[in-house]
């Protein structure tokens, strides 16, 4: 079953913060986050493994709650370059990074 992301779409002004949620009906071992700009390939942002860790680089961070089978992506002080569609990809098996991608969240940053 495909992970459900919320919100489906969001429009922000430059400098505002955003949270994107990813919820799965299956037990998870890992969660990946990717950003895809229109007409381009998805680009890897970060991965979180079972253990409830939080990760981040620059102004983008993420958390993973494996008990709730949920992950959240946090974008702080958003920049125009953050625009795109964000996908979570979930993996259920240790030793195999086969991913099931979520429904996607379209983020638009306006000046």
């Amino acid at each position, binding site marked *: 079953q495909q992970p459900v992301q919320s919100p489906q779409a969001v429009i922000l002004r430059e400098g505002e913060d955003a949270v994107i949620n990813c919820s799965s009906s299956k037990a998870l071992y890992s969660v990946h986050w990717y950003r895809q700009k229109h007409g*381009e390939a998805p680009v*890897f942002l970060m991965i979180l493994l079972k253990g409830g860790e939080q990760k981040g680089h620059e102004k983008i961070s993420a958390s993973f709650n494996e008990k709730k089978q949920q992950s959240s992506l946090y974008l702080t002080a958003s920049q125009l370059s953050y625009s795109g569609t964000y996908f979570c990809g979930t993996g259920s098996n240790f030793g*195999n*990074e*086969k991913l099931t991608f979520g429904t996607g969240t379209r983020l638009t940053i306006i000046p």
Partner: protein
Amino acid sequence: EAGVAQSPRYKIIEKRQSVAFWCNPISGHATLYWYQQILGQGPKLLIQFQNNGVVDDSQLPKDRFSAERLKGVDSTLKIQPAKLEDSAVYLCASSLVSGQGIGYTFGSGTRLTVV
């Protein structure tokens, strides 16, 4: 390092015709995936290779789709015969190993339009 190479970039065919896509992963990447992305949706896994062996092809419509990865490097995905609902972007991705907490690198994809 060079990225994941895919060709062709675009392809338009009539229904019932056949088509093939090619992927060259990043050198040394053992795991290769083919995903289908229909407009407005997330990528859907078609097949996963580990070196030249198939790990998972449970979602590959085997009556019309086939894929191979000879010598554990390049891979081709074929559709024969194509249907209108096959119109999508076909993405190839590779990773160094599977299950080690390493992200995918995607190619630019092949946009297929079936008319």
